[in-house]
């Protein structure tokens, strides 16, 4: 996979992950053009696009578009399901996810994505495993934070 973009129906970028080295300028240009094309397509149309030298797979969930650029030999349908699995993960994690969840907790969305995909290849197909890993990290984090708050209290006292 080359990159993954999440953007809203209004053309606002919500999440972007690039798996190949692309310059900032190029990223912006590609993102803008791609959003224009995808947003211009009608709902019933095919979810696959051949754009420039890329294959694009996109899917709309409510007001959010999930859009992946894949390699020539990659399977389009499988990528579609990969997007779906990612949405399932987000849904499970946030509990019926909506666009606002992703706006306010987008770093969490990134963490989940990193746990699910690595270097553009699917890392763990099991929903349970991915969430377990994320929850573990979150838990550790809280453990990590609790002693600090005690210190804080001490300092204040």
């Amino acid at each position, binding site marked *: 996979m080359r990159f993954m973009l999440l953007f809203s129906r209004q053309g606002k970028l919500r*999440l972007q992950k690039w798996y190949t080295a692309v310059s900032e300028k190029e990223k912006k240009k590609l993102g803008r053009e791609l959003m224009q094309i995808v947003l211009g397509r009608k709902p019933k149309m095919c979810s696959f696009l051949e754009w*420039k030298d890329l294959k694009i797979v996109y899917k709309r969930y409510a007001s959010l578009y999930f859009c992946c650029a894949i390699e020539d030999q990659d399977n389009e349908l499988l990528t579609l399901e990969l997007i779906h699995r990612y949405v399932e993960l987000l849904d499970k994690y946030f509990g019926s996810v909506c666009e606002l969840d992703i706006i306010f907790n987008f770093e969490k969305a990134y963490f989940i994505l990193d746990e699910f995909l690595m*270097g553009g290849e699917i890392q763990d197909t099991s929903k349970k495993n991915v969430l377990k890993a994320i929850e573990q990290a979150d838990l*550790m984090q809280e453990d990590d934070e609790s002693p600090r708050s005690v210190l804080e209290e001490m300092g204040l006292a």
Partner: protein
Amino acid sequence: MEKTLSALPSLLSLEPGAKLAAASRLGALVRGITELASKQKQMRECLVRLIYCEMLGYEASFGYIHAIKLAQQGSLMEKRVGYLAVSLFLNESHQLLLLLVNTVLKDLQSTNLLEVCMALTVASQLFPPEMIPAVLPLVEEKLQHSKEIIRRKAVLALHKFYLIAPNQVQHIHDKFRKALCDRDPGVMAASLHIYLLLIKENPDGYKDLTGSFVTILKQVVGGKLAVDFNYHSVPAPWLQIQLLRILRLLGKDDPVTSEQMYDVLDESLRRAEINHNITYAILFECIQTVYTVHPKADLMEKAATCNGKFILSPKNNLKYLGLKALTYVIQQDLNLVLQHQMTIIECLDHSDPIIKRVTLELLYRITNAQNVTVIVQKLLEYLRESKDEYVTISLVGKVAELAEKYAPNNEWFVQTMNAVFAVGGDMIPSDIPSNFLRLLAEGFDDEVEDKQLRLYAVNSYLALLEKDQVQYPQRFLQVMSWVLGEYSYLKTETKPEDIIEKLHCLLGKCSVSSETKAWILSAITKLFRLTLNVKVLPEVLQSYGNSMDSCLRQCSFELKQLVENREIMNTVLPLDASCDDIVVDASLSFLDGFVAEALGHGAAPYKPHHQRQEEKLSQEKVLNFEPYGLAFVTSPQASSVTGRQSPAGLSIGSEISCNSTEAGIKDSNSLKLDGVKKVWGKEGYLRKRESKVEALASLGSESETTTDTSSKTERTATVSEEEQEKQQLASSLFVGLGSNNLVSLMGKPQSSTQKVWRKSKIVEGQNGHEKAMNAQKTIVPHPPQIPNLMDNVGERCSLFQESKAMPLRKTSSDSAEVPTEQPAQGYDRSWTPSNNLKTIKAMPSASKEPFSGLFADGNFDIIQPANCRSAFEAHDQISGLAPSLPEEFAQHAHSKLELLCANENIALFSCKIWKEDCLLIPLFITNRSSVEVHNATVNFALTDELQTSESTDFPFPVVQSQTTVKCHLCLQMVNPCTQVLLTGHLTYQLESSHCTQEEFTLILFLIDFIRPLKLTTEEFGHLWLSLSNDVKQNLSFAPNAPEALSSALHTLQKELKLHIVDIIGTEGIIACQLLPSTPCLLHCRFHGGILSVWLRSPCSVLPDCMLYECQKVMQNVQL
């Protein structure tokens, strides 16, 4: 927000100046720490916001360093955000990344699982090739980690490393196997990503794993995996698809391997019955695999039925994929298209442009002479609607190709091409107009037809230019002006003045680019040869004679001169002769005087591109551990290597550059020898002749070896080394004695060259120096022809041979002396004739007296290293150290064993073995020294053109004294090119001394990788239609005899290892393949003394290369 961040540095630092009561010191410290901690927390918040800001398109580079800091210093949560920010902010080429290496290293060694996970993730995302070595050992170590999540991430990180720097991960291939056998299915699945890459590069290297992959797939399909891996009740679909892809690569063109997978493919096709996207995804891969592996009828039938489901589905996604699979499938079975005719027609008018496009792609593949008009029409319609540049470029190319191939008549062809130029605009790739013009100019076989076509083109362009207000794309205007300039004479009813007038109008338009103006000007120039009316001329000259554009100015001056002098005009611009060959002095011999003068003034001689690159590469080599030798000692050796490698005569220059000006003059002398007719391409032919002679020589010497034992073989050996010997001697003599000697030394062999090669025209163009070498090569089997001077050379070399061979001989007879008898001792004169009886016998004519006088100590030492190479060669052959090809290699066609490089300790021999599936390069390493050689490693540096299935490193921990070890390299050519250099080096250690490195080079030719492709006429036909890259060329071919075609084809077959599929009347079809499996098909037609060759291949470069080889062979035949 930015404010907060810019204020951060001051917030972060503690305030030392704060005045605090002593009693509350401790409290302040605690507060300070917590403040710092809470600042980090604040920093985390800031960075998260910064990521968001950057996503919205704001400049956020000021915060990058803070992200790195946070990743480094923060506790777990901060680290997590820090790493995330770093991976989103930075890319592989960012400088700040260097600051991260240490952090990643630290975290990789951490005992905290999460930290290790984070470090692995970030390394796989960001690390550029040059930073990989830093983390590689730690990542490798993680393959043995007890937690499967770490193992999995490590495998994926290595996968990423493999993608960006394959050579750095090569040594861990066996660990990948371990990962493949991991007890955790997740780790195994991750390792498949790597295997897919490895197998794609070299399917043959992993055939043994087919069984394992099939078993895994069977288990997965059979639902043996944990339910965790199910996705919508389909067992591990990602894993299944990955396996299907791997099997596809393994089973391609391999009936035996394919046989193993038929069952599981059948099973997969059957299992996938649930109506869900994921099952369709698996089916889609299955269909592709079934049609890629060795065909099996009933499986293909089942796959075709499945594909029907896709095409007939109401869902656009499935329809799209179905059509896509069809473009793939029809390469095997055209009938499938017929089944789905109606759906395809419907899809042609589909509302979704993507589906339309994939349908057009399908139609393009099934185009033939009957349906071409409809299909081209559809393609053009789509083109007119489409705004996308990529689509336009790819489609205009296709339309132009179809029009050229299948045009039913002239009118249609010209009209279609006009449409292509008009629609394609200036995005059109430049090869389309030039191909079109070439076609017009070269024409077909029918003179009348050609005229009609040209006239029609002229008419249509005149009509187009009639229209005012229409702007045509530049390229279209260029085509028009060329055609009008070239062929207006065919249109007798229009006066040339009128056309000139029209073009002149065009010149005045500001929308016309200056490049196009130059085209128009040259068209006007051509038109002036048809008329004496020069009314417009002054105006044109006035406007462009002073143009700022030098090109336009030149055109207008040419115009002026030519109009003034009609005679020159008629010779320079003859009518209808655009494709007649013009004799060009390609060697630029008129510059020879200039070159000689420049060289005389001390300019460096010209080096051809490849040699410069080679030198550049060798300069780039890392640290040199060896002490620098004397310049003139190493230079002859180096030059003899380059001289051998590069067929281009001029490359000898490197030797000369080391010397002084006299040498330069000598070089320029040889430059003058270049005949006008010399084309660089002919050297290849020359080489072949040489190698033939060499082969003959080797054959001769081999047979002698078997019949007669000692003296004869030894003599040939000595003589054959003289060529190198002589060159080296020439240089060393030159150093010692000045230029006169050199000239006379070079002179004699040259005259003998002409004697031997008189009949061959090719040699005419050769550089004198190379001639000398040729002469020596030719002389090899005929010792009596050696001129006197050569005898001398032989004698000298025999001396070195003796002195050099001596210590080695001693060691073999008396091993106790080994430690004291170092090779250096060979330099002194301690040998006695009786000890060397055998060696002297080898040179019956050699008398040693003159040399002991000639080479007093000093001289001798200097010359020694330069000569050791050939001396050793001889020695090896005498003492039986020289390797011979083992049985398993010798059964294949192979070339003679050649010495690649040698010194007093080690010698490398190699040859080419043309195996059916690869070019095998065996390498024999002979340890000549009296001690063991340690840590010898041969390393080949493969260029992009070549590939190998195995590692390019061959380590030999210990090579015993006086023994030979061998290794071999299987090569295939991925990117066709006529010739490629295979370089490599050998490093080794003598006893405990430092590492020594020897470099060597082999030239590989395209022909080395060409193998016959056995096809039937029908298969040929199918394949022919499916291939898109083609090249057509007429080769002039003198004999007009009835059997000329077949004799020509058989020559091609013999020389190029092709397979003649069929010869029908005046046409013949030939097939060959470039290893690993790129087919190239040739269609030859013999007509009126001309052999027109039409080549096709899926690879765009291969036809050109093959054509070049064919041309060489045909020229060879004519000579």
